[in-house]
């Protein structure tokens, strides 16, 4: 799922580890972060080489997302968790509806090699796709918001970053999800290394999850490169609605 849609998968990993393997939240989060890093590294090694993951844009948005995450961590204590979860779900459902209802808009570079002009080859149809990233300012601000919501709700930012890149910055869906896959590994590194050195990580379990996540990422990259943009957008919208349901169930104490 991470490789296909640019999502970390923590929203699935953590409840599964807690419910099926009886882990406490900290242990589950630690193992989940290792799985996210393994999935991201496996997928990115393909996406970056193929030019699908936009390294420059990913690094730029990583800065703004991290600023948001720090701000979110500072103000999280002043807000009710259920309010944050409702906002998060509202944003995800809105993004899902927009992705289903409105066609993808990609702006071709207007001549020259601008700082925000990029291209990649879509292996699904063999076309070279050129695009110019739009609304960099508002997209960066939206990523600050994504980082805030992510750190306040504990759900990975991919669910918001991909729609921000696709709907606001007009980055083609495949490039947006691949770039998000690349970014997720960088974001998860800080948390994973902290758990690793704190001794809270179950090494044997984390090793098994890493192997599984890597295998899943390789399958995801294979599918992602062959699926059409329209299909990825449609399936991504369904996943967003599913994630919203999971977040609401968790907030309601059911998961």
């Amino acid at each position, binding site marked *: 799922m991470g490789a296909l849609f640019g999502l970390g998968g923590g929203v699935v990993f953590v409840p599964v580890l807690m419910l099926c393997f009886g882990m406490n939240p900290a242990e589950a989060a630690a193992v989940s972060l*290792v799985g996210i*890093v*393994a999935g*991201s*590294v*496996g997928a*990115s*090694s*393909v996406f*970056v*080489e193929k*030019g699908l993951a936009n*390294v*420059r844009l990913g*690094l*730029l948005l*990583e*800065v703004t997302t*991290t600023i948001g995450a720090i701000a979110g961590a500072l103000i999280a204590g002043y807000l009710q968790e259920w309010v944050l979860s409702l906002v998060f779900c509202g944003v995800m459902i809105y993004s899902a509806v927009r992705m289903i209802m409105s066609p993808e808009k990609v702006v071709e570079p207007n001549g020259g090699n601008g*700082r925000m002009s990029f291209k990649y080859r879509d292996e699904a149809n063999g076309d070279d796709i050129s695009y110019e990233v739009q609304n960099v300012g508002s997209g960066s601000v939206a990523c600050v918001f994504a980082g805030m919501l992510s750190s306040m709700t504990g759900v990975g930012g991919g669910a918001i970053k991909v729609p921000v890149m696709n709907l606001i910055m007009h980055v083609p869906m495949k490039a947006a999800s691949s770039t998000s896959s690349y970014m997720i*590994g*960088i974001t*998860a*590194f*800080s*948390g*994973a*290394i*902290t758990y*690793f*050195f*704190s001794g809270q*990580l179950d*090494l*044997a379990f*984390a*090793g*098994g999850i*890493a*192997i599984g996540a*890597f295998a899943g990422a390789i399958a995801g990259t294979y599918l992602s490169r062959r699926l059409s943009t329209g299909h990825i957008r449609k399936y991504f919208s369904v996943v967003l609605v599913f994630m919203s349901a999971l977040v609401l169930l968790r907030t309601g104490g059911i998961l």
Partner: protein
Amino acid sequence: MNMNGYIAWTLRIGIAIGLVLIVIGELLTNEQILYYGLLILICSPLFAVIVAFLCLLKEKDWFWASIAATVVAIVVSGAVIAMLRILE
């Protein structure tokens, strides 16, 4: 090889060494080997950002090099601060 190629190979080498050590560690139930395998795997994204920074410096692409340097600084300082909190 261009920047994307260097980054992809850094990630590939990181995950290959990491996973080989993890598999050996799991098979031999050796925590020491598992420890180093997971450490290499977890650090791979950071190594890739450092490689991106070096490639951008080589290309004299100062704007994007400064962005990559900022990411390295944020990620490393975030990890160090979190670890210091644990040690307190």
